[in-house]
């Protein structure tokens, strides 16, 4: 297998998580997949700059988030409007037992600032370590930790879950076991 073929195979394996990361930044699935496509093209164009044996996922995630932020800067209004079309209202308040509907969760999540969405997704869902997240976001590990805490508090707030008011897990999540905390 040539180097390029091996690189390609690794890329294919990482595509699902790359798409999920993109979706957490650009809620609109079409925009998110455009980000993934641009990331792939950039990665392939710069394949010589990737050091084999280093963290390909972190490298790809870095390309994707840098591309997202540069697009956001270039056409801030456009991106926000496009995202806005898909914004929905939460259908309900949290249940008495503190559980929330997954769709409501997504609506609240999208109201977070991009830097909050990205750290929550990286550390909470993608399984990145704080160190990897720091590498991807180009900041210190301590910054990631405090950003995760602030993001989680903000999200709890948006979900109507203050620290006095959540004791149960969402029903959709009960079957998911062995989950590390954010």
């Amino acid at each position, binding site marked *: 297998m040539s180097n390029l073929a091996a690189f390609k195979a690794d890329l294919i394996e990482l595509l699902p998580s790359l798409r999920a990361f993109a979706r957490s930044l650009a809620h609109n699935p079409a925009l998110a997949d455009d980000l993934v496509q641009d990331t792939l093209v950039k990665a392939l164009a710069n394949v010589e700059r990737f050091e084999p044996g280093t963290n390909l996922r972190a490298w790809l995630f870095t390309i994707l988030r840098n591309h997202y932020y540069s697009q956001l800067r270039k056409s801030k209004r456009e991106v926000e409007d496009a995202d806005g079309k898909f914004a929905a209202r939460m259908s309900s308040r949290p249940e008495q037992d*503190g559980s929330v509907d997954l769709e409501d969760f997504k609506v609240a*999540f999208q109201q977070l600032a991009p830097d909050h969405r990205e750290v*929550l997704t990286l550390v909470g*869902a993608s399984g990145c370590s704080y160190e990897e997240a720091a590498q991807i976001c180009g900041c210190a590990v301590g910054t990631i930790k405090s950003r995760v805490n602030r993001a989680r508090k903000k999200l709890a707030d948006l979900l109507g879950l203050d620290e006095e008011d959540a004791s149960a897990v969402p029903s959709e999540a009960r079957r998911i076991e062995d*989950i590390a*905390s954010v």
Partner: protein
Amino acid sequence: MRGRRMNDVKDDDDMDAVLNKNSDDAARRKGKSAANKSLITRNLRLAYGEVTSEGVPDRFLDILNRIDDDSEGKKS
């Protein structure tokens, strides 16, 4: 005397109640904060998992294949 003693007992009970209430509140806050944390983590993973479990669109595989073909002969 008896009345005074009863007052003492009452005060002690009040103090115990206050102490217990404070530690109960602290424990409850801690428990609820942890519950919020795990609720958020679980939902983050569910939302992430929804996307990762979708099939990868052909357009991405097409891009990869095209690059591979373009590179034919250029790469060892």
